[in-house]
């Protein structure tokens, strides 16, 4: 029976004891002399209760044994551990191993790890948006309406044009837009041509928009588009998507440093930009459907975008990669592809014309 030399700590003091270690049939036997050089002390470790330290250098073995405070043994002979393991095959020591198995079977483990790593981007770009979308759709419309109300009071409350608002509501009523909750249309005093939709059925149009657009069809296209955002619950969905993306990334990366957090935040912002492009196109299509339903000339939407394009060109800001709205020309192309085949439309109805005229010709009040 080979005898190994090791360093033994008894768990009571930090005194290292030079010990003789031998593998006995019943238990691991450790013999050492106490400080005062009297009789040698022998302890026995039952093999199945021995714990092996996972992260040691090549050739070194660290074992622990017993209840708190544990005893420990360090042996620096490379052949000690294999001998220990083969001797006590019936009741082997417990290996307190890490997440990776020791070499040998490591090949397929790495294969799995690489596959899983490849799964991370797949999850991020495809699975996660789907899950977030699903979650967003589970939010009851009534709740979204409530949430939107809080937001709307903060955003829309600023400066309403009440006379135009009344006419815009009249115009929208004629379009007969179905929604799970009442839609609210508002005209805001702001010279910048813009329109937006807030979750919960609030659609706001800036006064400046009426200087830009020239026909009731264009207005119908605009409202149809914003209605599309609401109907398809775009704002709630993008909120869920970006939130889920953020949480996902922080889980994966764990706690790195502040720098990566900043990087991640920007990466995520770029992605939600990509989302809103898809969403814009979806909303355009829904807007077109609204126009079709009322047999309005879908060219109105093309006109609307042309006008917006002219406006932004005049101000020199049609940057495809920075703007939240996808480049207008690509949207115009999309729409034109959709409307090529159809051409049975009628002029805007009298009531639409009535409200349109009033909206268009109303002088901006100061």
């Amino acid at each position, binding site marked *: 029976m080979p005898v190994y030399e090791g360093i033994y*700590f*008894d*768990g*009571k*003091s*930090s*005194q*290292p004891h030079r010990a003789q270690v031998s593998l006995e049939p019943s238990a691991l036997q450790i013999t050492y002399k106490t*400080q*005062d050089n009297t009789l040698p002390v022998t302890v026995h470790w039952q093999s199945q209760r021995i714990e092996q*330290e*996972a*992260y*040691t*250098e090549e050739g070194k073995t*660290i074992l*622990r044994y017993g209840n*708190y*405070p*544990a*005893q*420990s043994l360090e042996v620096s002979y490379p052949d000690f551990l294999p001998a220990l393991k083969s001797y006590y095959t019936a009741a082997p020591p417990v290996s*307190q191993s*890490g*997440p*990776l198995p020791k070499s040998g079977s490591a090949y397929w483990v790495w294969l799995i*790890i690489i596959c*899983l*790593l490849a*799964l*991370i981007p797949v999850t991020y770009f495809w699975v996660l948006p789907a899950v977030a979308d699903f979650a967003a759709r589970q939010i009851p419309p009534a709740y979204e309406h*409530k*949430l939107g*109300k*809080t937001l709307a009071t903060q955003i829309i409350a600023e400066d309403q044009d009440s006379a135009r608002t009344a006419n815009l509501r009249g115009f929208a009523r004629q379009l007969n837009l179905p929604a799970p909750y009442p839609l609210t249309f508002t005209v805001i005093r702001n010279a910048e041509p813009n329109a937006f939709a807030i979750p919960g059925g609030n659609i706001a149009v800036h006064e400046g928009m009426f200087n830009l657009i020239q026909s009731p069809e264009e207005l119908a296209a605009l409202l149809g588009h914003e209605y599309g955002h609401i109907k398809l619950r775009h704002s709630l969905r993008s909120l869920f998507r970006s939130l889920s993306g953020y949480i996902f990334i922080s*889980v*994966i*990366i*764990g*706690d*790195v*440093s502040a*720098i*990566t957090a900043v*990087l*991640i935040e920007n990466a995520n912002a770029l992605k939600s930009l990509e989302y809103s492009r898809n969403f814009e196109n979806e909303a355009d299509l829904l807007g077109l459907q609204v126009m079709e339903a009322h047999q309005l000339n879908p060219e109105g939407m093309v006109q609307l975008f042309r006008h917006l394009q002219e406006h932004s060109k005049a101000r020199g800001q049609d940057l495809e990669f920075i703007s939240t709205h996808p480049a207008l020309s690509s949207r115009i192309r999309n729409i034109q592809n959709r409307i090529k085949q159809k051409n049975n439309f009628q002029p805007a109805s009298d009531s639409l014309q009535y409200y349109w005229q009033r909206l268009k010709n109303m002088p901006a009040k100061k």
Partner: protein
Amino acid sequence: MEENSTTTQSYPFVFHGKGTAYFEIQLANWVLTFISLGFYYPWAKANSLRYLYSKTEFAGSRFTFHGTGKEMFLGFIKAIGIFILLYGAVMAGALSGSQTWLYVGLGVFYVGFMALIPLAIHGRMRYRMSRTSWRGIHFGYRGQLMRLYGLFISNLLLTIITFGIYGSWYTVNLRKEIIGNIRMGNVRFSYEGTGTELFIINLKGLVLTILTLGGYLFAYTRDLHNYYLNNVYLEQNGHYSRLSSSVTGWGYFKLVAINLFIVVFSLGIAAPFATIRTMRFVLQNAELVGEFDADNLLQTEDIYKDATYEDVSDMLDISLV
């Protein structure tokens, strides 16, 4: 038996961790955390801490981290629960639509957050210390939660009243309380720095950093680092020793610059290499000097396995040197 076992000596720290080995461990941790939807986190942490501790050598022997994922899992769940409650309060306030409830929600959130900090420090210190050993001798933390709360609140108020000037004294008082309650068997720790000294370091650091347009920042960080470590004393049967750190501003600069490079250009994937570099930098530049008898530490601390606030402090991002 040698008589003068406690003459002045220096005991070095050596860090044996390897970036590649730690990277493998962390990579496996990430994958497992990912496929378990985050629930592997406590085990991942145990793996990582076990590795880092077992690669840290002091006076010829390694440290051991005894904590397990199983112990920390319960704490992890509780921590998640606490944070869901806190964020839930804000969300509920925001969604109620009434301003009053929004402020109530925010109030609950911030007060809850502040109240958690001492609890998280206390809980983490008790658990971490108890689950750390060297040559089989366990560390321990004997601080009292109420004392820590009293210190935390009174010093925070003083810092606010003095527009932050008291901050240096606050930091030192907190360190005195926390470090002063650490035991390593029968060895007592203490922190002997003073608020005035720290205040001078901060003042000098801020002024010179501004004057040199940030160039002095690394020297300032070096001063802080050394001030925090060099004032840690160990008392063993009436004999004293202290930590001695000799990091340089240039060393700090190299560490930070290269770590930044590693982390940013790998999009965070190579962060384990940065961790190993930092550990090596801190430990290789540190030693214990004085009358310390490495062979005669006695086991004194009781077993303590409650890891409830271990992960709360992770989520609060509290780091203790």
